């Protein structure tokens, strides 16, 4: 049902497939509103959640999506240090596959690790975030949420605010939104925007007020505190003054704007509590759409075709 076997990233991912996933996600949203939130679509399928990096929300979201589709799931959390100790990435991958599984959902700190995994195993691979590269399921749930809110993506103006350089969410959103015909402007400290960002077909603007004035929706990214006070950013106060999405700042603009955030939120840093908890924020809708979108992705990748010899 989808053209590609794996979901590794949204760069070059077909628009019609993104649309199919979004449409299917809406169907599963209805399932999540039922008293019994479970369908038998992936009964008998085994999915391994292979997390080489800490994650709470993405892992729970995937796990819930798998359980609601009646798949068998196994969680495997490994620190990359065990790989450094001796076992190679290839060994880990092949060992897990030898246990007869259907798909791997992987989070890994290294860009390209999911592609690498596909070279060593035959199972379906879903990228749950690879370092500073891509996080395609997050971008799909963001687009599902935007689609739900606006009813369309084509021509939509989306500002992505924050640390773009270290963000897989940003990169996947850029590719996905561009493919779906939306316009994207990146905004953040110049030290945290990749020097070649414009080559990806987006605009860069360091003035957050201009971006607010321009955009239909803002995707506000988490600013990691470890970036502060080093060579990249002077202080939390400076960031907040220049880029923080505060109530005061928004009140200067006489317009409605939709606020998104992939979480976890640093309240009072990149976004104020009053904004995050306001009606214009769709942050919790994103969380719910996350489960629905991941159900859609798993269903379309694993449940699409009946395997031979399977009654």
């Amino acid at each position, binding site marked *: 049902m989808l053209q590609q076997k794996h979901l590794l990233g949204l760069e070059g991912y077909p628009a019609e497939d993104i649309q199919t996933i979004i449409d299917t996600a809406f169907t599963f949203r209805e399932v999540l509103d039922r008293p019994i939130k479970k369908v038998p679509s992936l009964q008998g399928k085994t999915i391994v959640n292979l997390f080489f990096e800490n994650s709470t929300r993405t892992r729970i979201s995937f796990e819930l999506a798998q359980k609601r589709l009646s798949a068998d799931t196994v969680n495997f959390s490994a620190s990359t240090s065990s790989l450094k100790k001796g076992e*190679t990435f290839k060994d880990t991958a092949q060992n897990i596959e030898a246990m007869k599984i259907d798909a791997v959902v992987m989070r890994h700190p290294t860009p390209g690790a999911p592609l690498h995994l596909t070279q060593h195993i035959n199972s379906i691979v879903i990228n749950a975030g690879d370092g500073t590269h891509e996080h395609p399921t997050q971008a799909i749930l963001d687009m599902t949420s935007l689609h739900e809110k606006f009813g369309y993506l084509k021509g939509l103006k989306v500002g992505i605010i924050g640390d773009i350089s270290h963000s897989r969410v940003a990169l996947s959103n850029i590719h996905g939104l561009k493919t779906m015909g939306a316009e994207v402007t990146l905004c953040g400290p110049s030290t945290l925007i990749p020097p070649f960002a414009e080559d990806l077909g987006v605009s860069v603007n360091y003035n957050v007020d201009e971006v607010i004035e321009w955009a239909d929706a803002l995707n506000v990214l988490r600013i990691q505190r470890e970036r502060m006070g080093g060579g990249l950013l002077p202080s939390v106060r400076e960031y907040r003054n220049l880029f923080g999405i505060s109530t005061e700042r928004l009140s200067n603009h006489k317009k409605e704007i939709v606020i998104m955030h992939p979480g976890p939120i640093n309240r009072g840093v990149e976004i104020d509590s009053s904004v995050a908890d306001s009606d214009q924020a769709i942050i919790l809708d994103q969380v719910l759409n996350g489960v629905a979108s991941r159900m859609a992705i798993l269903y379309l990748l694993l449940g699409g075709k009946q395997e031979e010899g399977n009654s």
Partner: protein
Amino acid sequence: MKTTKLKKQVVLKGGMILDPMKETLKKGDVLIENGKMKSIGKVTPTKSADVIDCSGLIVTHGFCDIHVHFREPGREDKETLDSGSLAALAGGFTRVCVMPNTNPPLDSPESIRYTVDRGEECPIHIHPIGAITKSQNGKELTEMGAMLSEGAVAFSDDGLPVTDTGMMRNALEYATMFDVPIINHAEDLCLKKDGVMHEGKISTQLGLPASPDITESNMVHRDLELTQLTGACLHVPHVSSAKSTDHIRQMKKSNNKITAEVTPHHLFFTDEDLITYNTDLKVAPPIRTQADQKALIKGAKDGTFDCIATDHAPHTIEEKEGTFDLAPFGMIGLESCFGAVNRVLVKENKFDIIRLIQMLSVNPRKIMGFETDLFTNGNPAELTIFDPNKKWTFKKSDIYSRSHNSPFIGEALIGRVRATIVKGHITALV
């Protein structure tokens, strides 16, 4: 690949003789007697002579690579002087200079002596390059004088730059007493940080930490200025960027003590080839853009680069099979060198084959002060025989190195080495 002892008389019959000294390419035979050059021209073989048919092939000076890593001592699982020699023979190289970043590094007269003695046992000529600083720590000069007496031919901390500008000045100044080249691996580590590839559109797409071209060219420029200041010999290794090429071209106009090399992989690949996260393309300095590649080809054409060097850097499968961030920098390159540079320079960029052979034989020998007139009668035969037009696909089975980290596997090459003659033996590739 098969190596046999040369018979008393050997005649290389009916090939084209390429003399990179006289810059001639003409039909002729070569007579080798007792392993030494006897005559070139028309040779009528005696009955007992071993006649090797060279029709359709070019006979020339044995290739010389002044930049290889043979990992001995310390990482014999990756390469040894013996296995590296086989890789060299397969690539037409009869002489190499090994970099000192072994474990322990070649930073003393004793370790230089060890390498020279081990090299004697190998089927090719091996010359050690000594470290510039003790333990390659960038802080204390090595005993260059004593190391030269034991057989060192140049100095380098390759793999690591000499970061401290004052230290680099001292090294260049000290080396003026001996008039030997200082080779600095130019990368500004403060700017490079954790960069694993060239910074550009591709690194942005891949989400990999990257470093810009000036990471190299800034330090190349510094080294050129220091050379101007001290009057020392500077050899710039593995130039990867257009900017460095420009700096070298400019400075060479007024300073004849500067030489530079370019690698086959920087001439052959661009950063777009990294789109699949192929760790075999992870090298330092990194593969850069198409514009840089074009500038390197131009630099080879106009003489900015004196020679081709492979920077043959073996790593184990386990290391290279890891994720991109953990994989070590480096690729092997001896076996694929000629087919790659012949394709890019001669076949695709109308480069004169004589010029290319000069960059593989006479020029690198000149930089290191080796004998260059190999065709002089009485000199030991040190020859490479190749087919300039053979189209072939480089395969894993063409590798003789102990390691297999080559991005050339699967690439179409043009021109293939057929045989190598050195140290009284002939090695023929089947």
